[in-house]
C-alpha cells in the first residue's frame, strides 16, 4: 500500500469525502483488492462514534471569570511563595555546604583532642616506666606496650594507675 494515489484515496474514504469520480475509482480498486473495503467500514465506524457531550452553557463565562479573578494572595500561597524564589536553591545549597564544613571541622577538632589526650597518657606511661632516661630503657617501654590491648580495653573513665605502671617498670 505504498501507492500515494491509493493512500490519498484511502484518506478520502476514511474521511467520507469522495467525489463521484473518486467513488468510481474506489469501487474499481475494491474489486481488485477486496480488503480495502475495510477502510470504508472503519471510516464509517469512526464517524459514527458517540459524540462527546456538549460543553456547559456557562463555559465561556467561567473562562472569563477565571481570567478576571484577582491574583490569589492568601496566606497559604504567601508563605509558599518564597519557595519559588530563584535564590532559595542557592541559599539552601550554601547552608548545606556550611553545615557539612562545620561537622567536618568539629570532627577534626575532636580527633585532635583525642590525640592530645593519647599523647599525654603515653608520655605519662613512658615517664612512669623510665622516669630518668626513657630512651636508655626501650625494653621496659616495649614490655608495657605488650599489654597495650588489655590497657586499651580499660574503661575511659578509669584513671591511669601510675603507681602500678611504675611498679611494672621497676620489674
Amino acid at each position, binding site marked *: 500500500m505504498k501507492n500515494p494515489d491509493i493512500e490519498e484515496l484511502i*484518506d478520502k474514504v*476514511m*474521511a467520507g469525502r469522495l467525489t463521484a469520480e473518486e467513488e468510481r475509482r474506489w469501487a474499481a480498486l475494491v474489486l481488485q483488492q477486496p480488503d480495502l473495503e*475495510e*477502510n*470504508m*467500514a*472503519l*471510516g*464509517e*465506524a*469512526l*464517524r*459514527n*462514534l*458517540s*459524540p*462527546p*457531550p*456538549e*460543553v*456547559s452553557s456557562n*463555559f*465561556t463565562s*467561567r*473562562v*472569563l471569570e*477565571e*481570567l478576571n479573578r484577582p491574583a490569589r494572595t492568601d496566606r497559604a500561597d504567601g508563605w509558599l511563595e518564597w519557595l519559588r524564589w530563584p535564590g532559595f536553591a542557592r541559599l539552601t545549597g550554601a547552608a548545606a555546604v556550611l553545615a557539612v564544613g562545620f561537622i567536618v571541622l568539629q570532627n577534626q577538632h575532636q580527633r585532635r583532642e583525642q590525640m592530645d589526650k593519647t599523647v599525654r597518657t603515653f608520655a605519662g606511661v613512658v615517664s612512669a616506666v623510665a622516669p630518668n632516661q626513657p630512651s636508655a630503657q626501650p625494653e621496659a617501654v616495649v614490655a608495657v606496650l605488650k599489654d597495650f590491648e588489655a590497657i586499651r580495653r580499660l574503661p575511659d573513665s578509669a584513671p591511669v594507675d601510675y603507681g602500678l605502671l611504675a611498679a611494672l617498670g621497676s620489674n
Partner: protein
Amino acid sequence: MAGQLDPDAALMKRVTQGDQRAFEELVEKYKQPVFNLIYRTLPDAAEAEDLAQACFVQVYKAASRYRVEAKFTTWLFTIARNLCLNEIRRRSRHPADSLDASASPDEDAPAPQHEDARIVGAPDRLMRDELVSKVSEALGELPENQRSAVLMFQEQELSYEEIAEIMGCSLSATKSLIHRAREALKQRLKPYLKTGEWKQNK
C-alpha cells in the same frame, strides 16, 4: 494588512491588545472542538471541561507569544494536547487520582443519538450500539499518540501537516502513526467491519 489576516489570527491580534470580546469570540468558536479533543484522551466530561478551561486561560495569558502567521487552531490544539499529556503524566505519578479514569469512556456522555426506531429497528440499534462501544474500546486501547493522531484526522478534520505540528513530530512520522492506528483498529474490529452493518444502518 489586518484585512488579509485569517479571521482567527485577526481575533488573536485583538486579544494581544487586551480585547476580551475578541477572546470571548474565540472561546465560543472553539470550546467544543477543544473539549472534544481533550475528552477523547481523558474521557471524563468534568475533567475535560476543566482542562479545556485551563487551555483557554493559557491561550489568553500566552497570547503575546502567538505568531499571526501560524494557524490559530494548530496553536490552540497544541496547548490542549500538552495539557492532556501533563494530566496523563500527573495521573501516572499519582495513580490514586485516576480512579475515575477507569470508568466507561461514555459514562458521562449523553445517550447516543439514534435514528428513529420506526426507521431503524431495535435489533439494528442494538447492533449499532455494540459497534459504537467496540470502536470506542478499540480506540481506547491504542497508544495515546496514535489515538490522538487518528482522531484529529477523523474528527477535527486536520491535515497531516497540522497534526504533525500539534504532535511535534515529522510529517512522515505522523502519517505512519495514523497508518498504524488504522491498521490496529482494522485488526481489532475485523469481525465487525466485515458484517457491513455500518453501511446498512447509514
